[in-house]
């Protein structure tokens, strides 16, 4: 690393031209703390297998082991985070596990600001979710199995974020994918869930193919799988990456789009809600979907050098911006509370991706950080509600604030953080993204960036609107469900409260000009990060965005709140018996019908249909069938026909031979079918026929020998 840092001349020039705030972090190597950080990914992986084999016989049926593992990660991650903030840690370790040609295949772990951020998030959020899951999953037929795959899920993410090279990154990437497949398909008796799991896996696999290609291009051009090595050679100008930079950048970004569910790869995420709610919470907060954002951040030195990735950044900005708005719109029309939150996640991921696209590295990761808290909180809240009312649909809810006060208040904190109410977490992080975009737009007027600025402000409005809708329909009005709602047990409430504290305060860690903890944290990298540094919050933008958000909340409340005429008004307060027709009214009321737009949203922009009818069904159906048909009838026809011709020839010359396979002997026994059938005609016998054939061969060969 020091060697790499020493050779940054080209970057130095780059910095002079573009940057004003970038500086190389002065960092230590973390000592033993970093040297033993391999435990972070390894412990959960090992524990996952231990649970699989011994979980049933262990105390708490595997939950104990899983939680202990995550607890270990949380503690280690926190210690690392503190150490990083104090001294800065940049270290990298690799173990060779094989050489292929001149390439070394290595497992390793990288400990720097970025990976520590992820360790911390996965550990802390994961621990809280695991604790929560103990109660949520109680009574599940595959309780132990669940914790085994859930631990594998967290472990895979840790393998991914600790990766110092592409190979390990891909390993972690796919481990996350396969464990999410297991978790989404957890209730596999129902084929719908399996279909959702397959959809997630396949969508990711398509993107992964692109990631493979991107990784291959980068590694081969630079001559190493290792990120630090690639960056060093890139900066020294030793690579042939220049000519492929755009394609490598694009392919890797497509990979990131798959995991981070960016438009148009978002289709798997809402369906992934088929998994148990704790899975959704972790998947949306700290693992899986953040992997794409992490990947772009990890490769940020590549994306910030325009000579390599060039216009990919523009594409990233546009994709992010489209995602943040279009997915927010989809959240409006959902009845399933988890789906609303799922679309909301995609929308927020759009913010992060777009932020990285405009070069706002810290802002993107800061939003990732705060989002982890409030989105985990919202999902746990939703899970708590679902646990109580035994339904995912908001048309079965209503008026729950009376029954579940703790859930209500924590959910409200999460909502505030998500929509960006001062001083909750989302306010600070979203504001930083919009400020960065605006700064870029004014200094470097480019259509894409202006596009993003406008869409992100619109997105803030939409977010406020649908969150107001969710809160109104769920906690206000009359309860419409069948089950008897009740507050969740303490083991579920405590994690929610803990997360609520995080959601409320996490934003305070990075107030421009005041507390720049996260900035210091995530820019502790071996390679310099170039970005604009704000000396103070952009009051001008806050003055625009906050009213927009408040307007969104207000409209949402007006339309769906208890005072709205759309709202089903019972006697208010206590639960009433609500019959089916009234439930139907409730569903009607929920659907906010904007002409033209509504059918589009209802059908998710027709993208799912496009994939199904344009890609999946033709491939699985006609194309596959046609291939098989060709195989059986065309490719295979040559030998079969050859045999057939020989066979009919044989039959035709008055030989008592109705056995199909003898046709084969004609082809090979004699050199040609004709000779075969000729000889067959001569020798109707069986055993003797072969004698005759062989002696005929002898005669021919002998004659040849004599002649030549």
């Amino acid at each position: 690393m020091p060697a790499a840092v020493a050779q940054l001349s080209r970057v130095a020039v780059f910095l002079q031209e573009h940057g004003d705030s970038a500086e190389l972090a002065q960092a230590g190597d973390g000592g033993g703390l970093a040297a033993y950080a391999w435990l972070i990914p390894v412990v959960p992986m090992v524990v996952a297998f231990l649970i699989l084999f011994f979980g049933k016989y262990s105390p708490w049926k595997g939950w104990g082991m899983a939680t202990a593992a995550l607890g270990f990660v949380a503690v280690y991650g926190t210690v690392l985070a503190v150490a990083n903030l104090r001294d800065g840690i940049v270290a990298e370790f690799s173990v060779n596990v094989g050489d292929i040609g001149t390439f070394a295949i290595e497992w390793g772990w990288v400990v720097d600001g970025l990976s520590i951020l992820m360790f911390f998030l996965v550990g802390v959020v994961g621990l809280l979710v695991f604790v929560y899951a103990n109660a949520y999953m109680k009574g599940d037929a595959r309780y132990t199995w669940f914790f085994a795959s859930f631990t594998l899920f967290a472990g895979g993410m840790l393998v991914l974020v600790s990766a110092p090279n592409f190979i390990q990154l891909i390993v972690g990437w796919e481990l996350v994918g396969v464990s999410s497949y297991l978790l989404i398909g957890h209730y596999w008796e129902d084929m719908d869930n399996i279909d959702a799991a397959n959809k997630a896996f396949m969508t990711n696999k398509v993107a992964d193919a692109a990631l493979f290609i991107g990784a291959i291009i980068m590694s081969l051009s630079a001559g190493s799988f290792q990120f630090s090595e690639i960056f060093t050679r890139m900066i020294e100008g030793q690579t042939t990456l220049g000519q492929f930079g755009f394609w490598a950048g694009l392919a890797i970004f497509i990979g990131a789009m798959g995991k981070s569910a960016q438009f148009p790869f978002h289709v798997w995420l809402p369906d992934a809600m088929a998994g148990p709610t704790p899975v959704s919470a972790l998947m949306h907060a700290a693992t899986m979907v953040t992997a794409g954002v992490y990947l772009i951040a990890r490769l940020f030195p590549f994306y910030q050098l325009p000579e390599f990735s060039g216009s990919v950044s523009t594409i990233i900005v546009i994709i992010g911006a489209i995602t943040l708005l279009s997915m927010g719109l989809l959240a409006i029309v959902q009845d399933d509370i988890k789906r609303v939150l799922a679309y909301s996640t995609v929308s927020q991921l759009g913010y992060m991706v777009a932020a990285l696209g405009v070069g706002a590295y810290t802002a993107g990761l800061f939003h990732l950080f705060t989002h982890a808290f409030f989105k985990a909180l919202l999902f746990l809240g939703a899970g708590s509600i679902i646990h109580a009312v035994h339904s995912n649909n908001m048309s079965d809810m209503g008026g729950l604030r009376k029954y579940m006060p703790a859930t209500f208040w924590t959910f409200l904190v999460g909502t505030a953080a998500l929509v960006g109410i001062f001083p909750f977490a989302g306010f600070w992080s979203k504001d930083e993204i919009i400020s960065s975009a605006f700064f870029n737009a004014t200094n470097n007027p480019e259509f894409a960036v202006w596009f993003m600025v406008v869409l992100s402000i619109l997105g803030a409005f939409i977010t406020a609107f649908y969150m107001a809708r969710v809160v109104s329909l769920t906690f206000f009005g009359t309860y419409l469900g069948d089950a008897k709602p009740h507050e969740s047990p303490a083991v579920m409430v405590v994690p929610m409260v803990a997360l609520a504290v995080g959601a409320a305060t996490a934003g305070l860690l990075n107030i421009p000009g005041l507390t720049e903890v996260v900035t210091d944290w995530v820019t502790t990298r071996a390679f310099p990060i170039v970005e604009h540094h704000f000396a103070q919050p952009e009051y001008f933008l806050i003055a625009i965005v906050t009213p927009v958000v408040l307007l969104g909340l207000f409209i949402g409340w007006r339309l769906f709140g208890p005072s709205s005429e759309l709202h089903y008004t019972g006697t208010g307060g206590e639960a009433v018996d609500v019959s089916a027709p009234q439930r139907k009214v409730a569903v009607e009321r929920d659907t906010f019908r904007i002409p033209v737009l509504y059918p589009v949203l209802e059908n998710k922009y027709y993208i799912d249909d496009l994939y199904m009818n344009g890609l999946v069904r033709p491939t699985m159906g006609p194309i596959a069938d046609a291939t098989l048909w060709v195989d059986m009838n065309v490719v295979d026809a040559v030998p079969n026909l050859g045999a057939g011709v020989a066979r009919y020839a044989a039959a035709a010359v008055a030989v008592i031979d109705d056995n199909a396979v003898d046709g084969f002997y004609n082809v090979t026994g004699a050199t040609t079918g004709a000779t075969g059938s000729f000889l067959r005609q001569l020798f109707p016998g069986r055993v003797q026929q072969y004698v005759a054939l062989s002696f005929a061969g002898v005669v021919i060969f002998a004659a040849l020998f004599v002649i030549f």
Partner: protein
Amino acid sequence: MTIGDWLTESANWAFLFLAIPTFVASVMVVSSRNVVRAVLYLVIALGGSAALFLMLGAEFVGWTVVLVYIGAVIILFLIGIMITRAPLTKSVDLSHPISAKAPAALLSVLLFGVVAWAVVESFGLETIPLPEEATRTGEIGLSIFTSWVIPFEVVSFVLLAALIGGIVLARKDEPAEVP
């Protein structure tokens, strides 16, 4: 060497005297319509060949042929014929019909033609020395037990295997006792 030289050599007359009956007998073996006669013709053919061996001085081989073939193998054949209840009179289905015989004959003639051609091309009219005296059986024995001892042992194993194999194959499996 002219045809005259050849005809004046008395050994050649002896050769013809032995070879022609041998050949005719073997033709009868493959064409006779009576199965027993076919086998008896085989005796003549083999006897002829034994005599030819004697003429070449291969005394031991000749007498072995007489002993093994005429003494033992023929008996086996006859037993085989009897046990398989072959018709002892003339029979048409001993051979394939003429449509199959013709190509077989063609093939045989071709084979003979090719071999004859090859032989004539390579040996021409080279002569073969008539042996002064018959090969001593003792020398053959010596050769067998020095140069050829391993093949000899192998052959003995084969014979043993054939013996056992013949017994196993031909033995009639007694049906399981029904109590």
